[in-house]
Each structure stands twice: as structure tokens, then as C-alpha cells.
């Protein structure tokens, strides 16, 4: 369980308030106009942006000031999710050992994860030699070995074509289900929301609204959301 308790993010003139509880194992789509603070909300949850007021709790433990690496979260960014100078196997291995001193058991896990995302034959390659979709799969294989309780997606598949993006989203959803992780993803596409989100967090006007059931909200949006969806 992830609790955003009267949380407030302030960056210059911009400010965003959030007060909600998210259940692990469910998937949340964060939608809203550009500049509304979707990415900032994710960055604050993950610990990259300081929280000005309020608290962030995971399973009752205050993690507001905790290092991003110790929050039990893994985040996929818009880009730079892989180190271009390391091999696919090394990139995945970093999810297990941040100093890459891999033991035999680690290697087995890595190979299993690569097999799961269909990249067994590419373990020794560098990301530059892979297609965009394959690169996303490498990042997902790392999410799999990390097996952290929360997975945050800040539009990591934005550069992929529609079919590939859907494929990746399905894979993410499968992986999240396999590891029992909660999913929080920023998206622009209502179709994506319908496809994998259980609930929707609408960010607008300096406020992240309490999550509501995805289908219901999309079918019957309140005025502000209706204006955004068009």
C-alpha cells in the first residue's frame, strides 16, 4: 500500500497537491494536460523531486526522505533506461547487483528474465544493436529481476509505434501480475487507460485527484476530465 498523505510538491511557481492511497497489485493510470505535473508526481513518489509538505508511506512506513534506490520502487523513464556501453545482460544484472559482481544464481535469474521477454539470443549485445522495442524489453527484464513492489512508468514507450506500445503495455501488465507489483503509469492515450489501468488519477489544476475506476471515469467523465479528453 502506498499512501500519499497531504503531499505537496512545490517547484518555483508550480505546485501540486496529492492525498490518496494506492493498493499494491493494482494498476493506476496518471492522466492530465501537459504541464499539469504527471511526471513530477511520479518523480516525487520515486524520490527524485523533494516533497515540500506531507508524507509518503509505503505499507505504513514513512519513506518521504528515503533514497530512490531504497523505496521498493522501480521506475522506467522516457529515455536513458539502459546504459549504452554495457551489454544487455549487464544492464539487466544491475537490477540484482548495483556493482555488477554477479554470482551464478544471479546469472540464472538474468537468463530466465531475458527468456521471459524473448531476448535470450541478445544477451551479449549492446542496446545500440537492438530495436526500440527490444530495448524496452531489456528494461522490462530488469524490472522483472528487481521484483520490487511498485513499478512506475513515465511514458517509457512513447517513442514506439502504436502496435509495439500496446505489446509492451501488455507485457508490463503481465510482469506486474507475475511479481504482484502495483503499477503507476503516466499516459496520454485513453486507449491505454482502458487496456491496462484499473483506476485513473487525473492531474489538473495543481491537484492529483483521488483515483477512480478507469472505465467508469472514461465513460462518464467529470467536466474537467471531459475537457481534457475532448
Amino acid at each position, binding site marked *: 500500500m502506498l499512501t500519499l498523505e497531504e503531499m505537496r510538491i512545490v517547484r518555483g511557481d508550480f505546485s501540486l497537491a496529492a492525498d490518496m492511497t494506492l493498493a499494491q497489485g493494482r494498476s493506476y493510470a496518471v492522466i492530465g494536460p501537459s504541464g499539469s505535473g504527471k*511526471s513530477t508526481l511520479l*518523480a516525487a513518489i*520515486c*524520490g*527524485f*523531486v*523533494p516533497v515540500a509538505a506531507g508524507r509518503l508511506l509505503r505499507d505504513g512506513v514513512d519513506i518521504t526522505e528515503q*533514497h*530512490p*534506490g*531504497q523505496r521498493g*520502487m*522501480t*521506475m522506467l*523513464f522516457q529515455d*536513458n*533506461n539502459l*546504459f*549504452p*556501453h*554495457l551489454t544487455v545482460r*549487464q544492464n539487466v544484472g*544491475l*537490477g540484482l547487483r*548495483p*556493482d*555488477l559482481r554477479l554470482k551464478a544464481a544471479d546469472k540464472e535469474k538474468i537468463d530466465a528474465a531475458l527468456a521471459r521477454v524473448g531476448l535470450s539470443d541478445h544477451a551479449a549485445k*549492446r*542496446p*545500440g544493436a537492438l530495436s526500440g522495442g527490444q530495448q524496452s524489453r531489456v528494461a522490462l527484464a530488469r524490472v522483472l529481476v528487481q521484483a520490487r513492489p511498485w513499478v512506475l512508468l513515465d511514458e517509457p514507450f512513447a517513442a514506439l509505434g502504436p502496435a509495439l506500445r500496446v505489446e509492451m503495455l501488455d507485457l508490463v501488465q503481465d510482469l506486474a501480475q507475475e511479481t504482484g507489483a502495483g503499477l503507476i503509469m503516466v499516459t496520454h492515450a485513453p486507449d491505454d487507460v482502458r487496456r491496462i489501468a484499473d483506476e485513473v488519477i487525473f492531474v489538473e489544476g495543481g491537484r492529483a485527484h483521488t483515483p477512480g475506476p478507469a472505465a467508469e471515469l472514461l465513460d462518464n467523465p467529470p467536466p474537467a476530465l471531459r475537457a481534457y479528453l475532448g
Partner: protein
Amino acid sequence: MAERAVALSDRTGLIAAALVAALILAALVAVFAAADVGGGLGAADWAAVRFTAMQAVLSALISVLLAVPVARALARRRFAGRGALITLLGAPFILPVIVAVLGLLTVFGRSGMLNQIGGQLGLPPVSIYGLHGVVLAHVFFNLPLATRLLLQGWQSIPSERFRLAGQLKMTPRALFLALEWPMLRQVLPGVGALIFVICLTSFAVALTLGGGPRATTIELAIYQAFRFDFDLGRAALLSVVQLVLAGGAAVAALWLIPAIGLGGGLDRPLRRWDARGGVQRGIDVTAIVLAALFLLLPLGAVVLRGLRGVFHLPLTVWQAAMNSILVAGLSVLVLAVLALPLAGWIATRRRGGAEAIGLMGLAASPLMIGTGWFILINPVLDPARLSLPVTSLVNALMALPFVLRILVPRLRETLQDYGPLTQTLGMRGWALWRLLVLPRLRPQLGFAAGLTGALSVGDLGVIALFADQERATLPLQMYRLMGAYRMEAAAGAALLLLVLALAVFFICDKWGRWHADA
């Protein structure tokens, strides 16, 4: 986005910074303590101050003014050998000063090519010694540097602007006023300031082409007070003057000096639709040909003369060459130990402030630091015995500001791009260096190491203060041969030195680019 400081340890960076500061400050304190303030500056000293400032102003002005047409020609023309010429423009930066001086002497000297041609035309011989010789050598070194930096400026103008200018059929004058002049106005002061600062602390050029009451730089005056009069007090006093002058100028120029890139992309010519007329073409061709000749003739002369001398080099030259390689290797090592943690420390900080630590090396002149350390070492040990290590150290300090300018932007970019990822993964400490920083910075490291090694191999500065008859580096040995009028052997040594400097640079740079994929 990453507001949290990335987990690059501050401690090692602070230690490195403290070490650099201590090395320089210890020398400073020693110099201040020994400075003979009572006597004040004599007439000769004031003449040195005036000459130092004047030659630096002239060198900067002429280099920058000549660089404008050359850079413009290179920016808007495409021709075979353009890439090679631009690469060549990078050469003087790593070219040992004494080698270039020999080349310039061969072309512009008393019995050089120019005077021979002039003599046949009945012109009186021109002497290269004195103010114009010093300025000539400085222009030789800094015209290419200025050209490269200006070329960067030209390439920073978006190509769309030139397309637009082509559509509008703008005249060369209109295009200059609309696109090129605004860029030049931004870039020129920085380039000029950089060259001015470099020339302020010039020693080897003044040592070989200057001298006498009318053409002595402060740096040379320190050396003479030290070497000929063994007047430590006066040497120290002059060091203080040098520090105030060069240090003040360096700090003032800090905000103007442009970033030093790897020079990537400079060989990518832009398609241009303007300046197709005959006059413009004529101006460009003239600029390029003259610049190429100005660079190539002295270099070619060194190679040709050297080929004759290289086979009867005295044993001392080979020993000196070994010493030089040792000094260069040590410099690179010292630099790696100091520059990497320093760069890490600076890169995780907001812009400005911290970078000044690296510039201390530029502000404090090599001979000043050398003088300070001589004063410190002298009571304890024979300074000559430490001549090679001290030379390595000072050379590394001299290269530090350039190296930081090479490393820090790339490191900053790397941390910005991959900082969040390393944090979610919990990478820190040595793992962060090993897995992220070193591999990402490898091309820059190779380039920086090559630069440092080449500068160190070719340096003729502190070593001249410290060395005795047994210990010499190749540049010093070459200078001694020139002083003894053994020009054949000196030319051979020059060629050897040239090859060494280029080889050091080439090997390091190649190492950096090897497997530098993605």
C-alpha cells in the same frame, strides 16, 4: 529533474581539490616569504611587465583578427583536404613550443626561406628576434586555436538560418550583419581573452625568440633572476607580479573562455547558398592558402631538417627523450588522480565557483610554482634531483584547467542522463565510477590524457629552472643544442620531439576512441 545529488563521493573530490590548492599555495607562500619587497620593481622589471602585456595584447588581437577570415572560409567552403586542414589546426596545441620555434626560425630566421627570397629581391634582412618574433610565434600557436573556436561558433549557427538566407538571396554583407556578426560578437571576446591569458605566461617563446632589455617577459625575467643572478628574492618578487597580472586576467577571463570540445563535428561542412561570387571565393581561397602555408611551412621545415639530423643524434638526446617520456607518463598519472575526482566534485555542483580551483593552475604561472617549490626544496635536498618529478607535477597542474573543461561538461551530461537510473538501481561509490563514469568518459579521458602527455613531453619551463647538466628533458636538451649552435643535432632532436608528442597524443586519443560505441 534529478535534484538529489548523485552518489559520486565528495570526499575524494575535496581531497583532490585540497591537494591542488596546497601544491599551488605552498609555492605561493614560499614565494611571498622570499620576495624581496624592499627593492621594489626596477626599471628592467617594469619593462618586462610592459612587454609581457603588450606582446599578449598584440598576439591575441592579431590571432583573432586573422582567424576570422580563415574560420569563415572553412565554414563556408567544401574542398578536398578540408578535414585534414582542420585536424592540422589542432596540432599546434600539442606541438612542443621549441619545435615550432625551430620551424619558424627555418622559415622566418636570418638565413631562413623568407629572407633568402627577400635577399634575392634586394630587400634588407628581417630579424625574427624581439617583439615581432615573439608575437609571430604566438600567432603561429594561437591562430589555429582561435580558428577552431570560431569555427565552432560558425557551426553553432543553425543551418536553417543559412537556408533562409539563401532563400532571401541575402548579400554577403547582409548575411554577415544578420548572422555572422552577432555570433562573432559573442565568441570573439572569449577567444581573445583565452589567447591573452595563454600569452601572458609564455616562457619558451620568449626564452628562444625574445630576451634582452626590450623583449623580456616576466616569466623569462623570473628565470633569468633565478638562473643567472641566483637572486631568489627578485625571482620571488617577479613571481608575485606575474601572479597578480596573469591571475587577475585569468579570473577575469574565466567567464569569457569558451568550452573546449573534442572538435567532433567540425569536419562536417555545412551546405551554403551564399558567397558564391568571385570576390568572396577569392578572399576565402587566399585565407585558406595563406593559413595552410603559415602552418605547414615551419612544420615541413622541421621535418626536412630533422631527417638529416636524426641519424647523428648524440646519446644525451636519447637519454633526454627517455626522461621526457617518463615525465609525460607521470604527468598523465598525476592528472588522472587529481582530475577525475575533481571533475566528479565539480560536475555535481552548480555551475561556476568550483571550477576556479582548476584555473588556479592557469593563473599561477609554471615558473612561479617552480620557483616556490625550488625555495621549499632547496634547504632539504638538491632541487636538481627532483627536477623530473616536479616538472611532471607542474605540467599536470598546467593541463588541469584544460582537462577539467574537457571532462566536466561530459560528466555533467552523463550524470544528468543516467543519474536517475543509477539512483533507482542503487549504484554508488566505486561501482558508479567503474560502470558508468569511466566508460562514458573514455573518449574525453583519452583526449585529455593525450593532451596532457603531449604538453608534458614538449614542455620547456620548470625543467629549465631545476635541471643540472645530467638531468634534462628532450626540449631542454634541444634548447641546449640550439644554444651551442649545433643546429643539425637540434633539428634531429626537434623531429624526435615532434614524433614523440604526436605519438603520445595519438596513442591516448586512440585508446579513448577504441570501442567508444554508442
